[in-house]
């Protein structure tokens, strides 16, 4: 018992001592931000890392993260190779680049935004809209709810802030690119994102988390506030290194008639855990959560989602698809909470897994908690190998075994990928899938769009 307490202390101490170092070097911050950080680190000190004895963490053991003596990641001037690979170039309205958690102005592309729209890093936002931030930052992501949120909150400094004012529409995506470079010692970064859309505003935001090689830990928190009639199309693409840990929480609040669409894709990291919580806090708010997990080897990915129906007449839709190869393991826990006043809730949840090997494991758990009587909630989940009959049909026409498996995988994932509006994200997913299967060029999906166009002319 004593030994256990000791190791737990050691685990926490890594981050507590990171904090004192951070605190000394962080420079001046407004008092409210200072106390927000304090509340985060205090909470983390109090609870430490979660254990698998807790229901919410039953299927994901974070001991490997807790044990590792992570140093706070620094900007080392590296990362331009990854930037070249993952930048949206001209296809982004604005691209904020963070390397190892630090905003890098000279790699970012700012500007060209409509008047009043802000996309920048936290210190700039503090200068131009400090009061608004004080009322928003840390309001949705509760430090009490999740130790990783608490830990992230303790280290808020350099995050991304996006603000779209009333009735303004931003057409092109705003890209937040979080790059982790290889360092000699395992390092941790705590990316923080705050997205605020005022009444009737609309936009598209893509968060990319990418890394080259090596062991590191990304602990991200995103808060999204959508006021009445606001619309956000949100993509989160996780392509961390194969040895990395990735933990994220995305907390969304939707006002009346607001619309939120999430496309969350997990390709990288050895261990990843994503919590995605949407509160439908106004009538006729509409939330769609789409997820794609494409992992292999010994990767583990755990997605916990929550659709909190707090008001009547809200539809929500959720579709998560998992492609698991090798010894990969996937966890999906989708909770739908319908509060007592939330009559006429219409919620549909589906989770599907395609198992490409006998050793891959999927755990899928719907959780419905309903306190209203006039609601429609459905859920379904399925998991199974590639259909042998379908593969034979393709092979019988000359398509090789690997290519046939790829086509099947592509088809399985297409439910998700074809709904992604941001071309860059879709293409990246497709390229990744093609690469995993050592796909011959004639089967690349890249030219599919032009192919479809040509066929339409028939």
């Amino acid at each position: 018992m004593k030994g256990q307490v000791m190791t737990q202390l050691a685990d926490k101490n890594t981050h507590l001592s990171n904090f004192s170092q951070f605190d000394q070097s962080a420079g001046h911050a407004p008092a409210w931000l200072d106390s927000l950080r304090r509340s985060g680190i205090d909470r983390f000190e109090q609870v430490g890392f979660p254990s698998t004895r807790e229901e919410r963490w039953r299927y994901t053991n974070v001991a490997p993260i807790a044990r590792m003596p992570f140093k706070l990641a620094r900007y080392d001037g590296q990362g331009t190779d990854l930037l070249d690979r993952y930048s949206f170039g001209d296809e982004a309205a604005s691209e904020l680049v963070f390397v190892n958690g630090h905003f890098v102005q000279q790699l970012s592309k700012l500007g060209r935004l409509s008047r009043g729209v802000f996309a920048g890093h936290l210190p700039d936002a503090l200068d131009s809209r400090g009061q608004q931030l004080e009322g928003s930052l840390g309001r949705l992501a509760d430090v009490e709810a999740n130790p990783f949120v608490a830990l992230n909150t303790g280290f808020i400094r350099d995050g991304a802030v996006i603000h779209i004012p009333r009735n303004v529409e931003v057409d092109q995506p705003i890209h937040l690119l979080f790059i982790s470079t290889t360092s000699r010692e395992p390092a941790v970064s705590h990316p923080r994102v705050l997205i605020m859309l005022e009444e009737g505003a609309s936009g598209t935001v893509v968060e990319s988390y990418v890394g080259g090689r090596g062991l590191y830990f990304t602990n991200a928190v995103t808060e999204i506030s959508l006021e009445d009639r606001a619309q956000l199309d949100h993509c989160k693409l996780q392509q961390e290194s194969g040895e990395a840990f990735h933990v994220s929480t995305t907390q969304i609040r939707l006002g009346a008639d607001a619309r939120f669409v999430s496309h969350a894709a997990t390709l990288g990291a050895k261990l990843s855990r994503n919590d995605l919580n949407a509160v439908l806090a106004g009538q006729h708010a509409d939330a769609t959560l789409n997820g794609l997990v494409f992992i292999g080897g010994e990767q583990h990915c755990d997605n916990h989602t929550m659709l909190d129906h707090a008001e009547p007449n809200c539809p929500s839709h959720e579709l998560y698809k998992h492609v698991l190869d090798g010894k990969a393991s996937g966890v999906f826990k989708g909770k739908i909470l319908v509060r007592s006043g939330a009559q006429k809730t219409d919620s549909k949840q589906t989770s599907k897994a395609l198992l490409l090997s006998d050793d891959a494991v999927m755990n899928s758990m719907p959780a419905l908690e309903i306190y209203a009587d006039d609601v429609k909630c459905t859920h379904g989940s399925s998991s199974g190998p590639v259909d042998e009959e379908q593969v034979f049909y393709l092979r019988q026409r000359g398509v090789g075994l690997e290519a046939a498996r790829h086509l099947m995988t592509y088809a399985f994932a297409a439910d998700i990928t074809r709904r992604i509006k941001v071309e860059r994200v879709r293409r990246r997913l497709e390229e990744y899938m093609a690469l995993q299967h050592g796909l011959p060029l004639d089967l690349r999906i890249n030219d599919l769009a032009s192919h479809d166009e040509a066929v339409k002319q028939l």
Partner: protein
Amino acid sequence: MTIEPLLEIKDLYARVAAPGGREILKGVNLTINAGEVHAIMGKNGSGKSTLAQVLAGREAYEVTGGSVRYKGQDLLELSAEERAREGIFLAFQYPVEIPGVSTSYFLKAAVNAVRKHRGQDELQTKDFINLVKDKMKLLHMDPSFMNRAINEGFSGGEKKRNEIFQMAVMNPTLALMDETDSGLDVDALKTVAEGAESLRRDDNAILVVTHYERLLQYIVPDIVHIMLDGKILMTGDKALAAKVDTQGYDWVDRQARQVG
């Protein structure tokens, strides 16, 4: 000079590839020469589809005896896709639905896999479109089918027509048509049969599995076989098909027992 048959099946045995899987083919002998059309008839469950699937390389069946030579090589050595690339085409009795994969995209991949195997350049989208255009006309296919997922939501007849359309595009050396006529209305039957008939050449062959003589009035067979309980029991000309149509199979059984 003797010409080698296109396909030569000798004493072929096959069973379901599972522990304790039952034996379905019990000594099939069949020789098909280039330029010929063969028909196989026979009761439900006699093994006709199994024979077609085994020839196409379906791994759900295990060959336990006998041999199959195709174009002078050991067919059983080849994988399903290699057989397809060597010109074997199976029009499925029950075409499979594959949600999410568009027909046109799949067919382009298939055509190019075969071309690559033959050392030909891959078709670009434009050339591919030209190729399928003609074949769609031939089979009165609605172009919108090309954009739909393979067989997904197709009616029974549409699926069969789609099989023959694909067959026309692939232009096989040995076409195995497994009950392509069942589920087709009279007009569709005619269209499909004409489509198949147009593929006949001196250097290819067609093996038709059917229950009805009607199809054979359009695709006229050179040779008709009757299959029963995993064996070919009787072989004749097209008159045999007519006799089955009017008299059923009982007499075949009886005659076989007398002979046996």
